[in-house]
């Protein structure tokens, strides 16, 4: 399948700082593609380069097969001539225009006739559930409503790509969840490729068809949400998506199925063989809190540990478990109520192995 949007070796510096460093990816037709990473990782700069709001230093960006930016040929199509729609983090709804005036603006710029314009705006407002609010000024709207106006304005001219810059970060938690499914619905209805930028991994995991995880101007991994979560390629991806426990260990034995490890207190543990097994013998074990199971202390299998602290999370329980020399954060079913001081056995259902010195290296190999 050909990409709707293709970005190739994009580079952009600000005062000697490489904000974007050789970034390449493609977005397929009607795909929801997310750039996710911590603030300052270069995701917003990448998005702004696609929009033409930022001029890249080198690389190539094409939309629907046409170059909008190519450093080799000196192409740089100005923003207003790129067929894009964009929703800004602060919505950027024009305060001096009504809802209708905001939404119809791209059509007015194109010189679309008034009657047709009116029709299309009505249809758009209906889809956004805002038929009644057409004559309101933005100051009379809630944050969620302003966001819909911004979305309507970005979509009304049928752009080749929809660019979303952390559009949900200013909404409260409930509204954010609602808007997430709303966005997916609207995308299905309209059929447009989306480039979505966020620092919120939950947002990225729940909405995206594919995710690119970025750090320090570079993409660490591009994959489906499930794969990003299940099979992270680098320590950074593992860290950024979800939480992780790190335990120093020695690799005792590695077979095709399992790896046997010895922890600092001498306890041995067997985990299913991960994608990457360091040469060893010293290594670092990474385990997600939800990848462990807790059994009563009479069980023969698993690590012997003690409950140090219990936190009730509502939909789950989180325990800080202690053994001599290390601690583990373990998440369990909320029905499993353990008391502090209780002895337990912990089995690791899935873990990742890293080189022993991977502690400070974000790009250390995981998979």
């Amino acid at each position, binding site marked *: 399948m050909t990409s709707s949007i293709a970005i190739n070796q994009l580079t952009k510096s600000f005062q000697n700082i490489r904000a974007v460093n050789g970034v390449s990816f493609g977005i397929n037709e009607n795909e929801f593609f997310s750039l996710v990473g911590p603030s300052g990782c270069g995701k917003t700069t990448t998005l702004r380069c696609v929009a033409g*709001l930022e001029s890249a230093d080198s690389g190539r960006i094409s939309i629907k097969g046409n170059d909008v930016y190519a450093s080799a040929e000196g192409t740089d199509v*100005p923003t*207003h001539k790129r067929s894009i729609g964009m929703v800004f983090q*602060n919505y*950027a*709804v*024009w*305060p001096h225009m009504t809802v209708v005036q905001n939404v119809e*603006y791209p059509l007015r710029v194109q010189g679309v006739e008034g009657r047709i314009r009116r029709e299309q705006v009505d249809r758009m407002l209906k889809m956004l559930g805002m038929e009644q609010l057409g004559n309101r000024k933005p100051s009379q709207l809630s944050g969620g409503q302003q966001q819909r106006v911004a979305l309507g*304005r970005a979509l009304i001219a049928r752009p080749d790509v929809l660019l979303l810059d952390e559009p949900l970060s200013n909404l409260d938690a409930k509204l954010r969840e609602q808007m997430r499914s709303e966005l997916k619905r609207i995308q299905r209805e309209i059929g447009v490729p989306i480039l979505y930028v966020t620092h919120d991994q939950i947002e990225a995991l729940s909405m995206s068809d594919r995710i690119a995880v970025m750090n320090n101007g570079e993409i660490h991994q591009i994959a489906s949400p499930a794969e990003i979560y299940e099979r992270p390629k680098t320590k950074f991806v593992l860290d950024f998506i979800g939480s992780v426990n790190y335990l120093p260990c020695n690799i005792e034995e590695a077979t095709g199925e399992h790896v046997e490890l010895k922890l600092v207190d001498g306890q041995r543990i067997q985990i299913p063989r991960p994608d990457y097994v360091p040469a060893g013998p010293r290594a670092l074990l990474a385990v997600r809190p939800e990848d462990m199971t807790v059994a009563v202390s009479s069980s023969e299998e698993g690590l012997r540990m003690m409950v140090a602290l219990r936190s009730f999370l509502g939909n789950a329980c989180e325990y800080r478990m202690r053994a001599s020399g290390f601690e583990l954060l373990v998440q369990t079913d909320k029905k499993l109520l353990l008391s502090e001081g209780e002895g337990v056995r912990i089995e690791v259902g899935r873990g990742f192995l890293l080189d022993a010195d991977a502690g400070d290296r974000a790009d250390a190999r995981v998979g």
Partner: protein
Amino acid sequence: MRAVRNLDSRSIIFLLLAIFVVVVIVYPLVQVLIRSVWLDGRLSLENYESVFGRSRNYRAIWNSIWVSLTATMLATIIGTLAAFVVQRTDVPMKNMLRFLLILPFAIPPLFAAMGWVQLAGPVGLLSNAYKAIFDVPVVPWSIYGSAGIIFVLGITKYPFVFITVAGALQRMDASLEEAARTSGAGTIRIMRNITLPLVRPAITGGALLAFVSCIDNFGIPAVLGLRVQFHVLTTRIYEALTIPDLPLATAMSMLLVILAAGAIWLLGKFEGQAGEHAVIAGKSIRPHIISLGSARPWVTLCLLLVIGVIVVLPLFALVVTSVQPYYGAPLTAENITGSNYDAVFSMSAARRGIRNSMIIAPVAASILVVVTALLAYLNVKARYRGAKILDAIGMVPFALPGSVIGVGMILAWSNPPIGPTLYGTVWILLVAYLMRYMAYGLRSCRASLLQIHDSLEEAGSTSGANRLRTLRDITVPLMRPGMIAAWVLIFMSAFNELTVSVLIWSARNETIGVWIFLMQDSGFPGRASALAIGILPIILVMFLIMQWLSQDNVSI
């Protein structure tokens, strides 16, 4: 390609703006600077020696300093007390009180000086009443001289303090006071230990603005000082220019610059401090309102009385004088006449003055709004290198006393190396106003552009609008309130201008302010008052528009 074309159009605009700033501001300023130390083709401090060599001159400097300082103290007391009462107690009709308290800001100080002569002068309304009540031939006070100048300056310049302090009180984070209350402090103690220290930077800031405005003022010391030979720098410069002794006037205006610059420098320091206090939280929590209890009607009455004396009484005196057949006539029904109005408004010279002001003020306001909007755009939005410097230069006249601008205009445009001789024409007034009020436009346009987030314009280009279209549909409409506010402020200030105009006017090229002053000065207070009352409606309408534009935002 696009970048190059944009660069070109921006560079052309920048170049035009740079020429404007150099011609209007830099050139006259450099003239003052150089001519003050340049005599007969060589570097010399003789001009300054002649300032300090004659007691008449150096006494004027000293008078300027101590009169302005004392008047500033009076203004600070009135302004601060009024701000506390209006903002922090439960006095009724707050919006009306606030409006009346800011009103002196709009009325030319010359009017106030004339009004007070007509109230408390030898045959003034109050003086006559006093003489009748106590049956004495003369009153035991004189409105002429330092005391009168200080009094009238104080009651016309307090709005500077009132506006800044009221603003600080309004923006103050209520939790700071609540924290003191929960610590067990009572209302008086909180005021003394928390509130007052927190608004002190605002008080100082307002006081320094008032000081600069006192030093700058010509109308009040001219009306109340000239006839008793009490001189301040501005009136001395006026006198020196009537001789004319241009080198002396130049040296004295440089001294005025130093005084004002010192005050502005202090202001900068205090504004820096104000930033260190985290007073302005931008929250909408209303600070605690003190209940006045049984004292409420008395405090209200007191405040209304003060407003009556400060604002209403002098205007009332002007009205009375304007309808009297001769100054000091007994107040009877038969003595009401429209003869002053007839005389003034049938005088072709006065009509010409009105016409000049009615043309120059709006033209200056329009030119400046366009120029400063462009400059602010280049500086804030286009981030054009160099625009920042032009902006800084444009702000300089904000700190320059009007007399300096007047002297600079004479030096620059009497016999310029290139271009027309503007001195002796009406255009020199226009150029002077452009110099004097550029800062007003810059402040307003810059502030309104800073409020427009970049993404609002970016949303225009992602919607398919090119740069010009984005400017037209988004930036300019969003800037419009700031531009209108700047226009009205500049129009009003230029319309009321006297300090500069009185130095650079020439026959056939007078302004309203100049005419009112000349009539008052040459012994026609009735006609001067009639002209003043005649243009008052224009000033009040402009002031109402300004208030309406800023809604209840308390700011200058």
